[in-house]
């Protein structure tokens, strides 16, 4: 058994693919690349692929992560080069490394995620900075999330680790944010943007980094 950690980009071409569809796309790409996948036990054996965290439909991702367990040993460069030619447009291999089998499952290692959100805004830089600062000074931010099975109420503030201006484009800003993403709670960039009063101005959202426990 051997475990590879893939870092990949999910681009505009495939941003409307759901997490389940993405899993299937990876599984098929790995099969096309003739990677000797290890399978789970049981009635319906599945290849052992573990994604760090689901990416919502419509978001792009610059450094998504996936662990793949192999049944037979393979050289790292062989693994990467075989896989490269089998990915659909919009999925791009950024990095592959071998990780010990003994590490905890990838999803359990994720602690936070960083996003870059492009919002349209006529704000002057100071005004935009003030929006961010105003949000960060409050000690708590009661928030409601409508879900199919009812309304969930929670505090958004502690989920926001950091908030900054990445850059400015013509009539738009790129807002950076680091949000908690673990078993205690996962921050959602849309909620933060709404809290900034910019809900209707979102142009695009990209997850740029996943932070793992050992980082």
């Amino acid at each position, binding site marked *: 058994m051997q475990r590879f950690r893939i870092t990949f980009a999910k681009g*505009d071409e*495939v941003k*409307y*693919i759901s997490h389940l569809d993405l899993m*299937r796309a990876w*599984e*098929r*790409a790995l099969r*096309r690349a003739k990677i000797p996948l290890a399978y789970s036990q049981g009635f319906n054996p599945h290849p052992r692929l573990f994604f760090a965290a689901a990416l919502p439909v419509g978001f792009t991702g610059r450094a998504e992560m996936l662990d793949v367990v192999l049944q037979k040993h393979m050289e790292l460069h062989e693994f990467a080069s075989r896989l490269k030619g089998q990915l*659909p447009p919009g999925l791009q291999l950024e990095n592959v490394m071998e990780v010990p089998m003994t590490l905890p499952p990838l999803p359990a290692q994720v602690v936070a995620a960083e996003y870059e959100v492009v919002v349209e805004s006529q704000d002057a830089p100071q005004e935009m900075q003030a929006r961010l600062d105003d949000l960060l000074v409050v000690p708590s931010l009661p928030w409601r999330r409508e879900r199919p099975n009812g309304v969930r109420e929670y505090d958004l503030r502690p989920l926001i680790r950091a908030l900054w201006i990445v850059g400015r484009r013509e009539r738009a800003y790129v807002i950076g944010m680091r949000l908690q993403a673990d078993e205690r709670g996962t921050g959602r960039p849309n909620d933060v943007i709404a809290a900034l009063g910019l809900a209707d101005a979102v142009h695009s959202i990209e997850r740029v980094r996943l932070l793992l426990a050992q980082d």
Partner: protein
Amino acid sequence: MISTALLDRILPTVAKPARYSGNEWNSMRKDWAQAKVRVALAYPDVYEVGMSNLGLAILYDLVNQQPEMLAERVYAPWLDMERAMRQAGMPLFSLESHHPVRDFDILGFSLQYELNYSNVLNMLDLAGIPLLASQRNEDCPLVIAGGTCTYNAEPLADFFDLFVIGEGEEVLLELLRLYLECRKSHAPWKEEFLQQAASIKGVYVPHLYRVAYHEDGTVSSIEPAKAGVPARVQKRIVPVLPPPPVKPVVPFLNVVHDRGMVEIMRGCTRGCRFCQAGMIYRPVRERPLQEVLDAIDQLLAHTGYEEIALVSLSSTDYTGIEPLVRELSQRYAEQRLAISLPSLRTDTFSVALAQMIQRTRKTGLTFAPEAGSERLRQVINKSVTADDLLRTAEAAYASGWLRIKLYFMIGLPTETLEDVLAIADLVKAVRGIGRCWHGPRAQVSVSVATFIPKAHTPFQWLPIEDAGQIAAKQQALRRALPGRGIELSWSDPMTAWLEAVLSRGDRRLGQVILRAWQLGARFDAWAEAFQPQLWQQAFAKAGLDASFYATRQRSFAEVLPWTHIHTGVSTAFLWEEYQRSLRGESSIDCRGGCQDCGVRVAFDLDRCPSLADDTVRIASEHARDKADRVAPAGRSHMMDSE
């Protein structure tokens, strides 16, 4: 081209946006500017249904292999997407290059189901193409169709420039070349093109035929309106199956049949009298075993699919089915390849096959006895016996399956209440066997469809049974089937009614379809979208009587609206089969002796059915090795495990 910014505004607001975003593995992005003829291949249902159609996948592959041609795909946008598109003024566009459909040279629909007709009109409208062929000018794309519905496409005659009858592999390319030729030379090209197209075998240009009616509404004649147009259009076949596509588009979405498909055989020799496919896909042609194996090898390498379906109308009848399945299950065991066999027979041999390929949990096996009583099965020429079914059920339960699914029809010709109640007896007997093996965990699901007589079958002259009668029979069956371990499902009676009307309609139904669409009919095949009252209103407004099409017995002398379309099977044969059914006489499988259906003569065949040499050889060697194995016995179909 549709701008990415516009798509990015709309797609996040609709369900399953991946239906419209393309970029799937193996989808072809050919150079738009370089292509001399551009074809949009359309399926008038949602992506998940359209992407499961093998016929379109074959044509997509074929057209894109031609250097000067290009094919892209388009499916019917679901209700939410239609709303968003209309609001934004966004025209129907192709998945590959996002070009508006009206920028293509040809828009080709696959017509497989009558309940998609309102979607055809809706797609034309969304594309900004005038619905009526007569209103389209020289700059409009040519609107054409193929598929099983074109064997009686009269209700759609007003909306299409031409129909391809039969198998499209050769004739589509002939049409496209003719198109290139006609567009090259002169400006007004369309009429000239259609005239010439009408003389290509298998091409039906509806406006070149004149239909006259008697006072009672029946057709009096269908005649060519011009010289040089054939009086009868004979369907096209390919004498030998062309190599199957091995680089199909692999969808991201979980489509209806999310697996690799290899057609192992075309046609069926069983001669079930209700089955339109069994009549129109004649003659039987098998694909050589070695070709099937090579194709699967390549298909898996190009797609990464975890499941392969061996497609045909009756997979167990493929001469080499056992060696094929055995080889596949050994060759791909390590990759955990699942193999599915759509449509198996009701016999223990089929259960043995299913057992061989079962890799996952044994959820259910499906068999289709179609009718409850022995007598009625003789009438429809599905001569599986009760004994066959019970032995098959025993084998399935004994092999570990917990659930058996049974397909029946009611409203079959000559059917009495007794025949219907015989369904209950069969089901209870099957449940009894299940209980012996699995106790209360054993399940039988029973699916009961309403029989709909179809064009070009021995039952084409018959009425659909009156809705009240059907309801009474359903009620009786429900009462006779109490209890635990049995799950009963029905087809919707109004859906069956509409299918019955449209499938044997004439040209006058064009105005009904148009009005129904104008009233808002969409996705009639979907329970959540179907509004039968719109169709009833449309009939009333058009001054036509739906029962004239659905519940009327036709005479042998009547000119049927599809008389000028010839499948190769003679009307005399169909009538004779109908008469035999009334006498309760079954007819044998054509592998056991030619039944003179007319196909051999029509297509000048020396071998029919055409069984592949290598398959016959390998199968007979195999049979020698395994002389003690159970031989194929039953005659009914069995669908694949779920």
